[in-house]
């Protein structure tokens, strides 16, 4: 099989300002990848480009063999914020929506996930706390049998119990051949989860390394590696 994700010479400009430039990234199937970078570094933009939500880029984006927008949307499961639903929508109604439009939505997996994440399907979206809402979004995203999962900052601003549950659910329900990209700007708690890390800095990808290789080569943790990249202690040439 081909790569799970192959991005070549991607450049994206908005209002004539370069957001991402010269991005090249290849990820092999089955990997859990941490996408790290400061707020505003372009993590979300990169994910939105992959998911065909952001347009007008130059370069190519291939998810598996799919390069066309609609084909990528079939292959990718993106943790969207559910803004399209009214606040009074019940979680079960959102599930029905997902089950209706996504052919790869597994009702069984959904049931397992919401049980494990202790979610009450009968509540309304507006009644959820930030952590519960994030758990629900994860449950929906993982319930699809997609080839590439994009989790956009699933851990920002939620309590540590929810975070642990989400991490466990990822380990439990990610199929071995499925690939997952998780963006975050704080990495310590998810470090053991990551096969590889990709660091975005100065509008491009400045590092892409296996996390155990980082520990072995530099004798430092993933968090320390990421920080030293931003502080300039490790130069791009050292990689």
């Amino acid at each position: 099989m081909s790569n799970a994700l192959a991005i070549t010479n991607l450049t994206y400009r908005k209002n004539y300002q370069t957001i991402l430039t010269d991005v090249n990234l290849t990820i092999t199937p089955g990997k859990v990848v941490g996408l790290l970078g400061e707020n505003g570094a372009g993590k979300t933009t990169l994910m939105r480009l992959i998911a065909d939500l952001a347009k007008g880029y130059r370069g190519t984006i291939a998810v598996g063999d799919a390069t066309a927008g609609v084909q990528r949307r079939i292959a990718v499961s993106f943790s969207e914020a559910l803004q399209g639903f009214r606040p009074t929508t019940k979680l079960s109604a959102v599930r029905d929506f997902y089950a209706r439009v996504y052919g790869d939505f597994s009702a069984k997996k959904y049931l397992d996930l919401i049980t494990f994440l202790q979610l009450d399907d009968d509540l309304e979206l507006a009644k959820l706390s930030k952590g519960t809402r994030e758990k629900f979004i994860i449950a929906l995203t993982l319930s699809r049998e997609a080839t590439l999962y994009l989790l956009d900052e699933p851990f920002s601003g939620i309590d540590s119990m929810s975070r642990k549950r989400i991490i466990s659910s990822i380990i439990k329900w990610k199929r071995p051949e499925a690939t997952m990209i998780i963006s975050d700007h704080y990495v310590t708690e998810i470090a053991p989860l990551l096969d590889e890390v990709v660091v975005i800095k100065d509008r491009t990808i400045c590092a892409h390394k296996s996390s155990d290789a980082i520990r072995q080569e530099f004798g430092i943790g993933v968090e320390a590696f990421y920080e030293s990249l931003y502080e300039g202690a490790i130069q791009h040439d050292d990689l």
Partner: protein
Amino acid sequence: MQFDDKVPIYYQIKNYLYHRIIAGQLAPGDKVPAVRQLAVDLTVNVNTVQRALSEMVTEQVLISKRGRGNFVTEDVTQIAALKHHLIVTYVQQFYHQVHGLELSDDEIVQELRTYIATQKGADK
């Protein structure tokens, strides 16, 4: 289990399993928990556990049986060798660290004896 983020995770998983085998929590011939189960228990990536286990299979500490999972070797000498290897590793670490404090070999042995004696006293 808490991991040290500075040391490769697969390495720490191997160590964790070594200890369990030597301590007898995983006896010769016992089935090692499934990869996914281990990953969930340790909150680490499945691929990392997979890597640790396959290295242990290569080392012949674990025996992989097709379709049935991984088992602790029944070769007791293999486990004894593993134990010895671990002991040597720890002693090596200890020795190098203390040696760096400009202690003579005799003094090192003496310090160790004293420590063991006080520990035993404290236990009683």
